[in-house]
């Protein structure tokens, strides 16, 4: 079974985000990056399916050269080779344009399965995978938390809201968006890290007409969220003093203890 895993590089979760001068995005210089969380789970699921059924795992990531760190890490964890859709500023493409560029990059690979995370940790559109399925003419399922690829048909467990679940079956090739927590993510081994250095990384460039096409949605302004509540900040930087104050406030002011 040939599986393609789409992985996006995003700003590190703990990074302090600074808004750029134009207030249209964040300052990306000096920022540290990591793989978007649910994409990491998508890779893990792909590796597990391959271990059971054999085949190949191809990781695909899009962005500038810094994206290579996500690719190298995926190869070290066990992906067999990679496709890097290279370009600066691709992060600002709409999900439709991103999916179009990815479709061009992987169409000829004719994968049996395409896996990706359910949404990215930066824009959080939650659309690229589903649109890609549509562009490639594949059936899809989103928010998947269990994959059974051993039968004649693919059977997947989807998460619904409020603790409900549902199984869907479909023929392959298909595209699945994976929910975080589907399984425990493995670490890269030293052997894996060494082996990754010899693995193929193919660079492709997206078509100019995809990159240049005007987007249907444009960010006009980025800002800190308006607070919905007045928060009393306690301790003034001293966590222990804050804790003493907090206990008193909960007792005498909020009267919850």
């Amino acid at each position, binding site marked *: 079974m040939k599986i393609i895993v789409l992985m996006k590089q995003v700003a590190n979760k703990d990074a302090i985000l600074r808004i750029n001068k134009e207030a249209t995005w964040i300052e990306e210089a000096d920022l540290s990056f990591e793989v978007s969380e649910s994409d990491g789970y998508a890779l893990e699921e792909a590796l597990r399916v391959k271990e059971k059924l054999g085949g190949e795992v191809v990781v695909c990531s899009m962005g500038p050269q810094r994206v290579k760190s996500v690719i190298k890490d995926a190869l070290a964890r066990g992906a067999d080779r990679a496709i890097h859709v290279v370009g600066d500023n691709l992060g600002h493409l709409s999900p439709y344009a991103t999916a179009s560029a990815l479709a061009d990059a992987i169409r000829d690979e004719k994968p049996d399965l395409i896996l990706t995370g359910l949404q990215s940790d930066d824009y959080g559109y939650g659309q690229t995978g589903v649109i890609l399925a*549509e562009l490639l003419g594949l059936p899809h399922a989103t928010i998947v938390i269990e994959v059974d690829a051993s039968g004649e048909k693919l059977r997947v467990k989807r998460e619904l809201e409020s603790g409900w679940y549902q199984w*869907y079956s479909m023929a392959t090739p298909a595209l699945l968006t994976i929910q975080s927590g589907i399984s425990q993510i493995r670490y890269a081994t030293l052997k894996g890290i060494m082996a990754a250095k010899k693995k193929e990384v193919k660079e492709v460039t997206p078509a100019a007409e995809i990159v240049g096409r005007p987007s249907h949605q444009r960010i006009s302004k980025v800002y800190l969220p308006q607070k919905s509540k007045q*928060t009393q900040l306690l301790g003034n930087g001293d966590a222990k003093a804050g804790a003493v104050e907090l206990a008193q406030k909960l007792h005498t002011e909020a009267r919850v203890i």
Partner: protein
Amino acid sequence: MSNGILVFIEHRNGVLNRTSLEALAGAQLLGSALQESITAVVLGSDVAALAQEIASYDLAKVINATNANLADYTPDGYTDAMEHVVKQLDPQLVLMPHTYLVRDFAPKLAARFGKSLISDCIRAEVAEGSTTFTRRIFLGKLDADVVSDGEAPVFATFQSGAYRPDQAQKGSGAAVEEMTVEVGEIRMTPEDPFQEVKQAVDLSKADIIVAVGRGIKSKDNLALAEKLAEALGADLAASRPICDAEWLPIDRQIGSSGQTVAPKLYVALGISGAIQHLVGMKNSGTIVAINKDPEAPIFDIADYGIVGDLFEAVPVLTEEIKKIKAGA
């Protein structure tokens, strides 16, 4: 010439998903600001009763779009049906609730029109005849105003809580229009939805909840939170990453994929406050947040906050609460 606003009404077996009323309320507000009429659409094989229920709201009309293949939700079926309805109506705006079901098919629908959705909006405002949508980005750390430059229709989804269901205005009875829609091949087969039987803990009844997030750093550190919970007489809960790591069982998870709670006191330890978590606890009475990151979105909804190291604050807080309780 495109005109009007189309609102998608979600249901399961004819039972309304109330988040749809939030989208409907949003549509009514935008409709009056833009002077556009509003049409609601229900999809199904036999949901005439639901169409009648929706017709009691202040709308121009309700479309009851039917096809035998719409009895069970599938992304293929719903996309084909909605594509048909949107092409028939040619609206300016298509608004939907940002539910798990809509997330599953709406990007595919928008792609049929060569575009993406403006997804998961927390509000929309009209100025000089044009609409600006606001979305949360970076897991809730920042807001982004988004405008649409393209041709109609614009597809957008509203996050749960963007509007209140009781904001949806009733009307004098909208006309229900029957529409038989075309649905192509359905490539996926759904089985019946189910709940995991092992859901042993019902946190919705808890008076006090101590919830831990990524900031707790390791499973061993949970003892710290357990001691605080014990002192408070609280139930222990967690954000998703903690349950994903199996430090606590999944039935302790608060948020959109877990339980929704509203205790009188909610203490969030090392929880940044991603929107998926906030929707599960934002209606709590008093919210306390202890987090080292002053920019963490949890502070936006907290009544009391300590910006600092939870490993310093929590033991002191536990001791202080014990003292207060012993004195009381």
